[in-house]
């Protein structure tokens, strides 16, 4: 019984982790007042870059680093167009999503069907000795543990630091923040690049750790689900975690239903995370006051210093 619960827990953590990275990154971006809809494109590009690097070197960390750089490169393009040139953020974000999808498919052509050999996790040895939960936790990839560190960092940034307040000011009232001397444009650039890097890690996790196999469009909409999670979380990091694992659990339902021999079409089970996304969006958005009070007031609106 406990074993079963533990394996459900582990599966949920494993499936929720890419959403944690993608959504926490986008949360920081949106808190600065920038709406980057291109998460899916950045994730996919990160995924193929990481996959290619790991296939060549066998080193997951090199791959993750390369994915971060790839995500940042794409988000830099977004930032130049959306922040500096003040182009329509929705349109640029869509362009990024479409471009990233095409780019990853193009780069990944040579890798379709290639499988990676999983390397034993170094952290595994450390926690394996723990009573009861040890063996289960040892199966978790270090990137799962690092995602908790990321959460702690983002939470601390938003809730306990001056930098977090400045970020919020830039997202709520950029003109006021600028007037008292904060570099609004630079802060938005930094936040957007951070979001790009995290989307890259999320993609790397999906292709290298989660699937260890390349297929076109491997992230299967997780970038978009991450965007929805930020709304669901009303821009709060702790709720992002809750949401991410909720979705991790939903996407794992499929495996458990199959294990129990439930006669439901697999397509319906696969559709569950997307339907659940719509459901939670509806549940959270129906309270429009809640959204209005929490959404960064200048989200999606370009800022231009009047000199």
């Amino acid at each position, binding site marked *: 019984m406990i074993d079963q619960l533990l394996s459900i827990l582990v599966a949920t953590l494993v499936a929720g982790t890419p959403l944690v990275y993608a959504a926490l990154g986008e949360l920081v971006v949106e808190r600065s007042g920038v709406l980057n809809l291109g998460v899916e494109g950045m994730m996919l590009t990160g995924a193929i870059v990481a996959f290619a690097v790991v296939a060549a070197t066998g080193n997951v960390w090199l791959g993750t680093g390369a994915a971060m750089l790839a995500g940042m490169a794409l988000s830099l393009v977004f930032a130049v*167009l959306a922040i500096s*040139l003040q*182009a329509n953020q929705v349109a640029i974000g869509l*362009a990024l999503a479409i471009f990233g999808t095409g780019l990853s498919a*193009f780069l990944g052509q040579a890798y379709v069907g290639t499988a990676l050999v999983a390397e034993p996790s170094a952290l595994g040895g450390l926690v394996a000795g723990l009573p009861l939960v040890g063996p289960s936790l040892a199966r978790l990839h270090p990137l799962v543990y690092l995602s908790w560190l990321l959460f702690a960092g983002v939470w601390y940034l938003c809730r306990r630091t001056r930098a977090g307040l400045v970020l919020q000011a830039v997202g709520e009232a950029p003109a006021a923040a600028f007037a008292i001397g904060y570099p609004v444009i630079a802060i938005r650039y930094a936040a957007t690049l951070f979001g790009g890097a995290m989307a890259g890690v999320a993609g790397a996790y999906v292709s290298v750790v989660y699937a260890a196999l390349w297929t076109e469009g491997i992230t299967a909409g997780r970038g978009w689900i991450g965007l929805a999670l930020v709304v669901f979380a009303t821009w709060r990091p702790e709720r992002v975690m809750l949401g991410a694992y909720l979705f991790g659990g939903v996407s794992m339902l499929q495996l458990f239903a199959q294990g129990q021999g439930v006669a439901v079409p697999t397509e319906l089970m696969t559709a569950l995370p997307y339907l659940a996304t719509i459901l939670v*969006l*509806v549940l959270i958005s*129906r309270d429009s006051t809640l959204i209005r009070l929490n959404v960064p007031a200048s989200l999606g609106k370009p800022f231009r210093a009047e000199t």
Partner: protein
Amino acid sequence: MRLVFERRAAPSRLMAWLSPVIAVGVTLVLMLALFALAGRDPLASLQAFMLTPLESTWGIGEWLLKSAPLILIAVGLAVGFRAGVWNIGAEGQLIVGIIFGGALALKFSASGSPLLLPAIILAGAAGGAFWAAIPALLRTRFNANEILVSLMLNYVAQLWLTYLVFGPWRDPAGFNAPQSEPLGQAALFPVVLEGSRLNASVFLALAALVLGWVFLNRSYAGFQLRVIGLAEGAARYAGFSVNRAVWISLLASGAAAGLAGVGEMSGPIGQIFPTMSPGYGFAAIIVAFLGRLSAVGIAFAGLLMGLLFLSGDAAQLEFGWPASITALFQGLMLFLVVAADVFITYRIRLLPRLPRSAP
């Protein structure tokens, strides 16, 4: 010297026309560069991919076949984009159009009734509109973001079609391949250009262009949508209903996408497979932007994007390049046109350096 980025006194009409041209030009240059990188003669490759296909009747038919669904969907999307209603679920609406139309086609194919094709067309439009009504309802009733809802429904629609084609709709005589039985003659659009596959579904796109032009440029509702997109506050003050705009936008674009779906099913494909569209629903977003959200612009942009699809197919055959090369250049083009659009309202000027002033 320093570069200054400043707002123009009035939006530049010249740039509004020039920006899609610049975007397409830069895309072409990048294509040539890619051909050169692949070790091909760039100009000869471009000619082989973009111009040679247009020398034959067959090629022209293929070109128009690819352009028609793009134009059809993009006109529908432009209605919503003008009002700031972002339907990015056209791909899913196209698929549900096929599911609705396909259900009729498979059931009554053998009847040979002349009413079957009109019924399929109506069912396709209804299917697309139904799928788009979901984000419309959720947005107007529960304030749920239509971008995310319509996008999620793309995945759901694809899974629905996959389920049908692998399950109840699978052709018993198809050697277990995931495909329906071929549709009967009564369920197919007649070919209109001898020596090609071009069929009557192309008239759906033409009708959409005319209707779209009238709606966007000459109707009061079209004007209301525009005001809502430009200044929602002013629109509300004038008593224009934003909810109504959401419904009109989504139903129109959904129905258009559904029509494009049955155009594919009862047109060049003539059967139902798990994958029915090479991403027309997403490419149409780019066509809408490239065409400046106007009917005339969309006609040109759709023909251009159709050519891009056509040359993508040729590059696949010739170079063994993946189909995604088309998506790559589409994304690039959207980037470029949105970036170039910036210079409609802004300009860059070179000014002498300012003297250093005290902070």
